[in-house]
């Protein structure tokens, strides 16, 4: 490959930006934010080149860069994108400049704040492109560190607790995953993710566990399950799947809203990505063995989080639970696609539909949830930190554009057709209902509840008589409109023309379904 190493350049761009910010001597927030925004937009431009050059008809890995790194440990520098990766790279590239543009009022060490935002982006890019577990893991953890400091240093009143909780939770999950993957390495001698998937398919991995790890005293199948659980834990915490979610509401609520945009928009997708890239391909048998309980957990996540959201009085906590609910749908689709079936074209289609739905849902939830937390950030800033469900009322009268655009985003979140959220949910259910009828039917309850609490939000915040306190509540400024209007426009665009995204992912999904077997 003599072509431009575009993925490496893309990953280095935010790191370079962070360095510029760290070393630059300027003061004040505005220049720092502009620099971060500049680098964010540069990364977006590079991503655009990547997407433009991506062959959507192929399921193969593209833009591959592969160099030996630590041969004795099977470690390579191996990055590439397929339909799944490029979708999430695109999402990260869109969300970071969005979040940076929404940020504001960072009085304390603004340069560090924006540098950490860019570092977080580098972690995301790396996670979504690395295909060797070793350096994939480095980026996975790299994204955790800036997030921790962003919460701890710039968060709400209970930020320390929240940050530590966030860190420990995800770190414990990561450690469990790391140990499990080390065992996998001992059994196979490689960290190469596509290769590991291949070994898992051929049964080589199971044989390796038997011959190389017999000293553990566990049978290959028992060991397989233990390792599966280890890796599963890492991702289940990140998504999160109930009951591994208790860190999330506090973290989302305490983090600065622009950071929450990235936590929910992009970082929660790392968990689902892990399920799709690592867990399901390497441990398909174990996943199928535990499918019943896992499906039950997915349904629990969808329904219980929607109910819990209904009981929240803090807008950020409510939206946090709503995020859990949306990601629960991703896992429902994913687990449904793992359901053993006859090998017929009909069932393959349902699985492809479910997984396409999962990918669309990831992208669309990223966009919509980020926009919603962005709007809450504006609310908080205008209301001096208030963000209770009952703190407002009648705002539509004084801020019609604000109410309109946030209203559209809320309707996108509840899956209104014509906006981006609908088609992903439809495809998930199209696949999941035939594959797992009862789980899917129960999960529709989540759709109803989502409508209830989101409309309640509109009712309490924007409708009713105007709360006298907010008589002078300013509508969106021109600058804010410039930031949010493109996001809302994108919601319409993807709602009307999902092909724009589907054309990137469909071949990859077909290939994945074929590989996962029946």
């Amino acid at each position, binding site marked *: 490959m003599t072509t431009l190493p575009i993925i490496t350049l893309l990953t280095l761009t935010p790191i370079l930006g962070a360095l510029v910010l760290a070393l630059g001597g300027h003061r004040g927030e505005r220049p720092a934010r502009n620099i971060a925004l500049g680098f964010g937009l540069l990364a977006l431009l590079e991503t655009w080149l990547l997407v433009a050059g991506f062959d959507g008809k192929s399921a193969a890995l593209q833009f591959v860069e592969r160099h030996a790194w630590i041969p004795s440990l099977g470690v390579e520098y191996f990055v590439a994108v397929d339909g799944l990766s490029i979708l999430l790279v695109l999402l990260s590239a869109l969300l970071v400049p969005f979040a940076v543009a929404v940020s504001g009022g960072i009085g304390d060490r603004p340069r560090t704040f924006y540098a950490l935002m860019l570092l977080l982006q580098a972690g995301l890019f790396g996670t979504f492109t690395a295909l060797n577990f070793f350096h994939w893991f480095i980026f996975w953890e790299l994204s955790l560190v800036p997030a921790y400091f962003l919460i701890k240093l710039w968060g709400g009143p209970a930020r320390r607790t929240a940050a530590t909780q966030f860190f420990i939770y995800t770190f414990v999950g990561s450690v469990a995953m790391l*140990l499990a993957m080390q065992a996998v390495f001992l059994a196979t001698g490689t960290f190469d993710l596509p290769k590991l998937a291949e070994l898992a398919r051929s049964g080589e991995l199971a044989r390796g566990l038997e011959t190389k790890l017999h000293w553990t005293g566990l049978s290959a199948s028992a060991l397989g399950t233990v390792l*599966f659980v*280890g890796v599963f834990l890492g991702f289940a915490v990140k998504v999160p799947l109930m*009951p591994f979610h208790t860190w999330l509401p506090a973290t989302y609520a305490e983090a600065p809203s622009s950071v929450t945009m990235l936590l929910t928009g992009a970082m929660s997708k790392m968990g689902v990505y892990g399920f799709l890239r690592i867990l399901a391909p390497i441990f398909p048998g174990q996943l199928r063995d*535990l499918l019943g309980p896992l499906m039950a957990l997915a349904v629990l996540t969808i329904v219980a989080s929607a109910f819990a959201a*209904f009981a929240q009085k803090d807008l950020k906590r409510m939206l946090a639970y709503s995020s859990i609910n949306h990601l629960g749908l991703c896992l429902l689709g994913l687990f449904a696609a793992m359901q053993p079936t006859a090998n017929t074209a009909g069932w393959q289609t349902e699985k492809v539909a479910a997984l396409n739905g999962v990918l669309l849902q990831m992208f669309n939830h990223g966009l919509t949830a980020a926009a919603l937390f962005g709007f809450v950030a504006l609310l908080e800033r205008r209301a001096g930190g208030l963000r209770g469900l009952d703190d407002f009322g009648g705002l539509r*009268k004084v801020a019609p554009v604000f109410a309109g655009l946030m209203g559209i985003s809320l309707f996108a979140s509840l899956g209104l057709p014509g906006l981006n959220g609908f088609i992903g949910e439809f495809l998930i259910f199209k696949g999941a209902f*035939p594959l797992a009828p009862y789980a899917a039917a129960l999960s529709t309850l989540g759709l109803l509840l989502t409508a209830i609490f989101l409309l309640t939000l509109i009712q309490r915040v924007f409708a*009713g008589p105007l709360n006298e306190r907010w008589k002078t509540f300013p509508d969106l400024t021109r600058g804010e409109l410039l930031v949010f209007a493109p996001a809302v426009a994108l919601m319409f665009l993807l709602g009307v023309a999902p092909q724009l995204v589907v054309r990137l992912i469909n071949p990859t999904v*077909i290939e994945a379904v074929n590989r996962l077997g029946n």
Partner: protein
Amino acid sequence: MKGIINSLWLIPALPLLAAGIIALMKRPQRKPAAALAIGSMALAFLVSCVAFVATLQPEAGKGAVQLTHNFAWFDLGGSALRLGWLLDPLTAGMLVMVTFVGSLIFIFSVGYMDHDENLTRFFGFLALFAAAMLGLLIANNLLFLFMCWELVGVASYLLIGFWFHKPSAAAAAKKAFITTRIGDLGFFLGIVWLYHETGTLLFYDNGAGCLEQGALTKLVTQTTVGGMAVSTAISLLLFCGAVGKSGQLPLHVWLPDAMEGPTPVSALIHAATMVAAGVFLVARVFPLMGAATADLGLEGHSPHTTALTVVTWVGACTAVFAALIAVAQNDIKRILAFSTVSQLGYMMLGLGVGGPAVGMFHLLTHAFFKALLFLGAGSVIHGSHHEQDIRRMGGLRKLMPITFAAYAVGMMALAGFPLVFSGFWSKDEVLHAAMIWSPSKLPFLLGLFGAVLTAFYMTRQMWFVFFAPRAESASSPGRAAHSASHHEPQGASSSPHESPRVMTLPLVILAVATVLLSLFATPVWPWFHAYLGGQLDHLQVGWSADSAAGLTMLLSVLAVALGVSASWRLYSRGKAGTDAVERLFPRLFRALQGRLYVDEFYAATVFRLNAAVAVLSDWADRFVWSSVVELAAWLAKGLAWLSRTLDESGINSGFDAGCVETRGAGGFASRLQNGQTQRYLRILGAGVVVLVVAIVWMGNN
């Protein structure tokens, strides 16, 4: 002529474009916004007329015209999800009705909403509403229909809650959206199920569509839970959607509350658009609903499938239930709202016992006379300064003569006055089909009883509004508040006045249409049946009905006569200011006035359950899950301590590879234990719990 199918998308696209442009307009641009909305609707009406003409010539030997235009929307696996337009008599008839009635309602709104500061926004929402409904009508794909269906829902949400500063309006809007969404869950599952079974959601696709013979045969032969045919199960799920949207029992509760919207919105929701969508859906998927292994039905009547039987009973019960409640309402719009629920019941009954032609004809005639009644009510409300209580009106016959005449036409059509009012013929057809329905005669009797009630409550309303002596309390406090909230100019004139021409003209046109429509489905010339069935070339003038038809007609005339005379006698002789029925049956009247307490029942059961589970989930989150994690943390600490002790005491000093992991975990845990972060150790325990659970599962395998 057949080329119209390629331009059919224009019909919803025109109002949609108007809505989009209006959304970008500023508040003071009132006139351009109104002109744009009305213009787009008028154009859509013209295109609809062209489409209608195209369906008038049945293709020789092939029955009704059926033109489709399908296209790929996005890739899905090896194939693609395809959408499409469809033009057949069902669509064409509805298109003409919706665009015609819609245009008139739009024009009426110019007068009615004259004083509202948000007129621009109002027309934007109206145009969106119309666009969604028109898209629903031309859909040749159940998914596309569903998408438009939801957009109709959101447009109605915006319009019902148009006066969003009123808490009651905001609540009613939410209620409408949520209640219909409950039905939509079933609808949604029905769609994905149908998609799975047939592999397509296109209705008609040269033999490969989901409503065509191949797919239907497959669906009726397969069975699912309880031995039910798959076609029945899917039909019932789809019907859930129709129950929500068309306000059938038990999801009718949103419809009366939807009166919180401005009156033109009520007219649009109750006549031409939203509620019609559910009935239209049943008519559209009728081939599926009526699909049976063998053709059980008699020639020319609907087959007696389980799905249609359910439709019949739901319709019949709703028709009577809502008519009963309407008897005891005092708000002019609420009476009409319950009458809509009741009439929708008749439509469902008609679909169930008589098939699409019967149900759809009642839908069409009802659209005209209900739009007429609502706009008439709007004119009354507008003229009497936003008074809505019929007991405080009276004597308007002389003060608002045009409104009175038009309203009387609408009232007689709704009540079913014989011969020259379309409502008579369409209701008669429903009753006739119910009479010869073999499984049971009860739906017919319910329908007949409903007809008596309809005549009764409409006469009551007419008497109070137009005939009763004018009430003294012409300046009630409630009225003043209303006027203030709607920015009515104060003190101009305290006595009611006739509305401006922009409002009365639509009334007159609708009244004429209400009468003229009665020509199209009489037993002498059953044009509409022939049109829907593609039999126009065989249509003959002449008495074509059986003896049951004559009997039905007689009974239905008697029912109307009974209702009208009883009501007129009771009310015209009653004392002013009191309700005759209330005096005779006080307890029954109060129960009916309280809408038989269905809302209260839901509030006491569903809402409370919902709230309780929400609190429970939140509580579980804060305490149960955390405690589990806490417990596991202690367990982990214990393990860590044990591990360290074992290591240190040297029992396990053989340092083999197996210990590396244990030590790693133990060391990590003990480091945490030494630090400040004890309470977070509980998380570590979560892992242990999972391991334990996993091992238990493994043991089972």
